């Protein structure tokens, strides 16, 4: 994989994300790129299920929210370091997902998709009634937690670089899976699950594995995101908006491609930012997402990368 050019292309993107805001100490750019990191991370990991295995996870936000909760809870109630809490969040959420996954992935495509929505609602209801996690009021963490990171200003930079790391890891993960035997099996499942099983692909295990793999980095990103804001509550942690936007980004960029997701995230963020400054209601965010998704599904199901590949087929050798 290191020998392929795409590996270095991803590296370049990561380097750009690190260098650009750091060079000018540009806080505004950093914040905008931080959001891009979150989108790219969520969308790449969602892509593992959607683009490779062909399963839509409408409720991928649950990884993000639960990761956020576990991280904040460990930092706040037990004084754990950020690094350890993030790791615990990642492992905890992907472990839970593997177990859940074995169950709900027995459901075929559409039913699985529906049950993912219900899982979010179920987890949200649970958290809202869960005392130790602040119930529906949530958890505030004290600014003290930023001290070990060098104070609040510096902490924001540390968090940013960690977000970039998570994004980079997500892109590399997508790439590594896509070019592996595991990925081949997943894509076969996405094409024709029954045929794949007959060919020997161990479908239940692969589906559960990819589902839990797709939970790890979003959980860590959730931990970082809410830690940064020093506050988490159920209505934010389990807001279906983010996971919906991740789906739109996947489809916009081209499901099943690594490049597409990054491109799609960038484009979507630009579009959203532009449109929201001209429209007055924040609810239009979802209307825009909806219109975009409808247009893509109806007319451009292969997304941006599909269009690019049809114009420049040579690029297929270089990009993924």
């Amino acid at each position, binding site marked *: 994989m290191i020998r392929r050019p795409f590996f270095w292309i991803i590296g370049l993107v990561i380097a750009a994300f690190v260098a650009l805001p750091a060079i000018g100490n540009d806080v505004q750019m950093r914040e905008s790129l931080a959001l891009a990191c979150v989108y790219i991370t969520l969308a790449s990991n969602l892509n593992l299920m959607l683009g490779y295995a062909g399963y839509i996870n409408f409720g991928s936000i649950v990884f993000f929210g639960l990761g956020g909760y576990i991280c904040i809870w460990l930092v706040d109630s037990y004084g754990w370091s950020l690094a350890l809490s993030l790791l615990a969040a990642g492992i905890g959420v992907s472990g839970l997902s593997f177990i859940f996954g074995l169950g*709900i992935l027995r459901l075929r*495509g559409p*039913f699985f998709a529906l049950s993912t929505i*219900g899982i979010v609602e179920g987890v949200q209801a649970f958290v809202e009634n869960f005392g130790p996690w602040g119930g529906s009021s949530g958890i505030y963490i004290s600014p003290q937690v930023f001290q070990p990171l060098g104070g609040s200003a510096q902490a924001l930079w540390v968090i940013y670089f960690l977000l970039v790391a998570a994004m980079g890891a997500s892109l590399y993960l997508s790439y590594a899976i896509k070019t592996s035997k595991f990925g081949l099996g997943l894509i076969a499942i996405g094409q024709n699950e029954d045929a794949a099983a007959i060919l020997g692909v161990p479908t239940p295990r692969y589906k559960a594995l990819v589902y839990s793999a797709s939970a790890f980095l979003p959980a860590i990103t959730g931990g970082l995101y809410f830690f940064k804001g020093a506050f988490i509550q159920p209505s934010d942690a389990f807001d279906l908006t983010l996971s919906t936007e991740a789906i739109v980004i996947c489809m916009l960029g081209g499901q099943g491609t690594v490049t597409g997701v990054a491109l799609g995230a960038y484009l979507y963020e630009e579009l959203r930012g532009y449109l929201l400054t001209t429209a007055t209601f924040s*609810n239009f965010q*979802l*209307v825009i997402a909806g*219109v975009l998704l*409808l247009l893509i599904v109806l007319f451009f199901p292969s997304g941006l990368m599909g269009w690019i590949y049809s114009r420049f087929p040579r690029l297929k050798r270089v990009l993924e």
Partner: protein
Amino acid sequence: MLGILASIIDGVLVGLVYGLAAMGLTLIWGVMDVINLTHGAMIVAGMMALYLLVSALGISPYLTLPPVLIGGFFVGVALYWIAIHRMVGRPPLMSLLSTFAVNLILIGVGTAVWGTALFNVELSLPGITIGRYTFPGPHILAAVLAAVIAAALYVFLHYTRIGKALRAVANNREAAELVGIPTTRLLAISVGVGVALAGVSGMLIGTLFPFTILSGDGYQLKSFIVTVLGGFGNPVGALLGGIALGLLEGLVTPFVPVSWTLVIEFALFVLVLIAFPGGIFASRRGAL
């Protein structure tokens, strides 16, 4: 004890309305293997139509039923042409995404215009009192109307030409085309009917409980649960499933805080689907 019985009976009454809602969903599912993710939005549309017509025209709430039914039909046909027509024959995930997209648009516009305001439709209808327990008038009337519409749907499907053609298309689309049935038109009609049912059930629910633009999701989930209980593509099963769900709610609500009801129902949904991946009655397509 009697209190629980009363709660159960009331649950069954409400359950009939859930069943009606689910019939709309299961019809579209059965005829063309499309899961309509705008179902919740259409239920809300029915609720809002009720509210707007009543407050604008001051008419009796129940008089809004015919316009909602007819309007819902045309909205459904439009939905077919916009989001579903091109998806027929493509992987089912695609129609999930396209109807999901339309749902985003509708709910987005709805919340932009009305926000999360709570709407309530004023009704005074005498109920039936037995001993200490009163069964609210609106519940009884809604149940009766739901049952009547469900019966009408049954007659439509089994005793009219269009209804029979619909069942043929549900059973085997290619064969139906071969015998000269205009399948595209029928697919559009089935979506029209499905959405009309969703809208009407929304209107009826609006006479029972207060609602917001976002209430649709909860009722959509209930419709899915009922569909799973009753079998896909099986309207009679949907009605029975609705009654079963209502019964369950009647049993559970006296003991459990309201916010947990949906969680329990959803857990049931997932568990049932895991045990019976095709739904309890696992009826093959075409059980219409």
